[in-house]
């Protein structure tokens, strides 16, 4: 595997991590400012819920991961996926790394062991509602794939064999990505409009 590719990927992740950190800090400050402006002194230093914070990080890290995968795939055809070993390894590594980051960040939402102490009924409510976003995300992606593939390969009459792999990957990413979006949106909603 090309050394420069590994170096670029590593640098990309480091720069992305720094960007994510700054973005989360900015959002936290904005949120604190919002509470202060309402004159709620008791809530001056209120922080985000743990799951909310982790979901936000997860959205940003997955976004970066998807951008890196798109960048790696850019300029290649679908058939290159099986013919070009370097491309396949790079894409699989990027995907695995993205999913590992997701696993690390979102494990607390599994509500197992000591992590269950991070939850209360409000968090449970948000998590329950996030499931609807997962279904919506998968449905939306299915529509995009169905229409996209049908239109693009209509004349050919068949689709390349690598497409189902990419569909599976994209579904896998969408399941976690949409759940995190649902969690962040759920907290945003509940903070403003109640339950």
């Amino acid at each position: 595997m090309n050394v420069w590719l590994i170096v670029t990927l590593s640098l990309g992740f480091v720069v992305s991590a720094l960007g994510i950190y700054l973005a989360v800090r900015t959002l936290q400050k904005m949120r604190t400012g919002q509470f202060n402006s309402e004159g709620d002194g008791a809530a001056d230093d209120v922080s985000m819920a743990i799951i909310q914070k982790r979901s936000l990080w997860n959205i940003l890290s997955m976004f970066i991961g998807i951008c890196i995968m798109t960048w790696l795939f850019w300029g290649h055809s679908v058939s290159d996926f099986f013919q070009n070993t370097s491309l396949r390894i790079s894409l699989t590594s990027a995907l695995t790394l993205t999913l590992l980051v997701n696993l690390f960040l979102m494990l607390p939402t599994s509500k197992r062991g000591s992590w269950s102490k991070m939850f209360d009924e409000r968090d449970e409510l948000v998590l329950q509602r996030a499931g609807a976003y997962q279904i919506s995300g998968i449905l939306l992606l299915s529509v995009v794939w169905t229409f996209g593939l049908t239109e693009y390969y209509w004349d050919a009459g068949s689709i390349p064999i690598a497409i189902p792999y990419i569909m599976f990957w994209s579904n896998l990413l969408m399941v976690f990505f949409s759940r995190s979006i649902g969690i962040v949106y759920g907290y945003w909603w509940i903070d403003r409009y109640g339950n």
Partner: protein
Amino acid sequence: MAIGGLIAMGTDIILNNIRKCRFEKNEMTQQELADAAGCTRQTIVALEAGRYTPSLGLGFRIARIFDKGLEDIFEYREP
């Protein structure tokens, strides 16, 4: 009775005076109340700010911490 948080759930209006009760009980902190009630501080903040309607279970637990009845803490008002 001074009522603090106002919770509008659909068309229902549920008020609470958790914050007042907390200060009456030796200026109990939000974190102490959260620990005693078995919830997170964010939930107490949301309750006091009127952004969350608790379950009956949490409502009763909070009332017991303050040695009061449920309706001393929460008040339902017709919309």
